[in-house]
């Protein structure tokens, strides 16, 4: 049995195709169960990919069944779906899954959501010994990449840089309160990112109250007139500002003593909305658009190196899995070797029982233990060699086929 993969993702298929073959959690569990008739199967379906991981004795038949299942999901003939599909096997399939779990194949590299989705797919899949180990290793790889590299902390836009900075100040953003000044799309985008990380909206202040109310309704807060912003700002932990005002909308005098409670101010407007002198106040940290751009540039420069590190982790973990797989294939041979040796040991002991005479329990235990140890020591070297040979053979094994 080997690992096989049939799937489609944002790299090959447009959203019109992806949405047709996407399945929910129950559908994924049902599909995995259906495909695992003579082996194992896991269905990983997210908004960016639908992938079927299989382990079956007859690889070609399993791949054919998986292709047919995807075509059935999409409600199209298999030939029509063909250009959007990829099929991987052996180590290529393993490396692919490990890269997926690490977030390296995601639209936003390093994003954390995919690890949870891989876990769900694993838990709902029809797994046996092979896919169980594969997915556990994939989850381990995903965690390792996030622990040992900074790939997940590389914001690619100013709004994601603002969210990352907020996390740097507050840690968990759950319970942090955001104030939006100006109801424009740029500020709303940054606020949405913060809300996605657990923060909650406290108020939207805008020159036009109707627009403020509209955004507040959408994001779950209240609206306040721009004139009353100084009173309201005390309740906020994060202020995101993006008005088209020519003057400062919030000045140093508008910010009251924070008493140790940090206030992160994100000024996305040009000309600036927030008085730079606010940054001199204790517990206040003000970032304007240039500061955020600098953060993005710095992290983009570092991202390439982090990406390479993450790739190396995925590849090394895949090699570890390959070695495990290779040694697993010699397990029956090792078991029969041990069984034969045990038969010989018992036979020789039975023959010797005549001249050994009557032994006490303690003496019999000593003889049993001694002969077992001799057999184990004799077998140790050949077993290690057998495993090494299996690993070496796997290293020089057939190339992984990649199609699609």
């Amino acid at each position, binding site marked *: 049995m080997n690992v096989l993969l049939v799937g489609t993702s944002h790299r090959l298929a447009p959203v019109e195709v992806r949405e047709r073959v996407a399945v929910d959690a129950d559908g994924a569990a049902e599909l995995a169960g259906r495909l695992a008739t003579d082996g194992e199967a896991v269905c990983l379906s997210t908004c960016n990919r639908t992938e079927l991981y299989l382990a079956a004795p007859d690889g070609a038949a399993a791949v054919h069944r998986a292709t047919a299942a995807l075509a059935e999901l999409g409600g199209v003939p298999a030939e029509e779906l063909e250009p959007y599909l990829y099929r991987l096997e052996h180590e290529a399939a393993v490396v692919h899954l490990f890269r997926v779990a690490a977030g390296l194949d995601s639209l936003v590299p390093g994003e954390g959501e995919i690890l949870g989705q891989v876990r769900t797919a694993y838990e709902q899949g029809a797994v046996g010994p092979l896919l169980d180990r594969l997915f556990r290793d994939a989850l381990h790889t995903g965690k390792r990449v996030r*622990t*040992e*590299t*900074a790939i997940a*902390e*590389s*914001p690619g836009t100013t709004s994601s*840089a603002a969210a*990352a*900075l907020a*996390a*740097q*100040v*507050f*840690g968990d953003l759950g319970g942090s309160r955001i104030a939006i000044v100006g109801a424009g799309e740029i500020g709303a985008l940054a606020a949405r990112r913060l809300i996605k990380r657990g923060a909650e909206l406290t108020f939207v202040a805008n020159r036009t109250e109707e627009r403020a109310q509209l955004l507040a309704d959408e994001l779950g807060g209240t609206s306040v007139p721009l004139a009353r912003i100084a009173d309201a700002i005390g309740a906020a932990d994060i202020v995101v500002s993006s008005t088209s005002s020519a003057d400062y909308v919030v000045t140093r005098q508008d910010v009251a*003593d*924070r*008493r*140790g*409670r*940090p206030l992160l101010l994100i000024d996305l407007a040009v000309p600036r909305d927030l008085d730079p002198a606010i*940054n001199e106040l*204790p*517990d206040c*940290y*003000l*970032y304007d658009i240039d*500061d955020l751009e*600098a*953060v993005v*540039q*710095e*992290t983009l420069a*570092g991202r390439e190196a982090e990406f390479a*590190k993450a790739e190396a982790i995925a590849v090394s973990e895949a090699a570890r899995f390959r070695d495990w797989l290779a040694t697993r294939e010699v397990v029956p041979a090792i078991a029969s070797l041990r069984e034969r040796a045990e038969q010989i040991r018992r036979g020789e002991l039975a023959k010797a029982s005549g001249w050994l005479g009557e032994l006490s329990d303690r003496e019999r235990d000593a003889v049993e233990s001694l002969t077992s140890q001799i057999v184990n020591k004799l077998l140790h070297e050949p077993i290690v060699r057998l495993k090494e040979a299996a690993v070496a053979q796997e290293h020089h094994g057939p190339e992984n086929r990649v199609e699609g």
Partner: protein
Amino acid sequence: MAEQLVWPVLFAYGEAAIAYAGNARSPGSLGRLATWGVRIGWLAQTALLVAQAMRADGFPWTTWAGSLNLFVWLVVGAYLIWGCSPRFRLLGLAVMPVAAALLAVSYVAGGMETATATASHDVLLVGHIAFALAAFAGFTVAAGLAALELWEERLLKRRRAGILQLRLPSLMTLDQLTVATIAVSLGALTVALLAGVARMPGHGFDLLIGGAVGAWLLYAAILYLRLRTGRRALAARLALVGLAVVFFLQLGLMLTHVA
């Protein structure tokens, strides 16, 4: 024989210190090596202390070198509580070289020997020393946390573009941990002081007790400033001042209360 355990401890702490330094330059698998160095070293040091305790007749860390050994174990133990998280590896860079150096000093000065002749049976003295050392270890780690917090605050104020690449703990996490560590350590210092005061009828008031009361007041003031008035940065700076006070008290404790 038990003294020989110091070598794996020194090796593990030294390895952790070097790996932390390497990890600071290029974050990655060196961080994991460092963490394992701390864990294994601490376990080996625990075994060393247990062996010392079993062989001694009474409290075995009555020499200044012995108490330094115990102090290092307490500091690394306090760091280990949350120090294995990748985000606290920079703190490890501050803690582990100092721990390795202090342990080496302790070894050279005979801190690993089982000093049966000097082992103490005075429960109050043992309580006084043990709790004071635990408190000082906690204050030392709190100072490290406060230093990290002040550094991060400075980076945020100066809007350093590379701040996210440093993978520091969040500002609020550092603040909360500093306060919690000081609060727990202050509790230990209170017990140490009570034990010291209980011994007073027989031994009288000494300058060190006065110093310890001063330290208690300083750390109580830090907690008050942080929790009641919200002066976060000032509290962190005072935690650094507290480290200097702790250093002199530790020195005094080792020179006057132990052999």
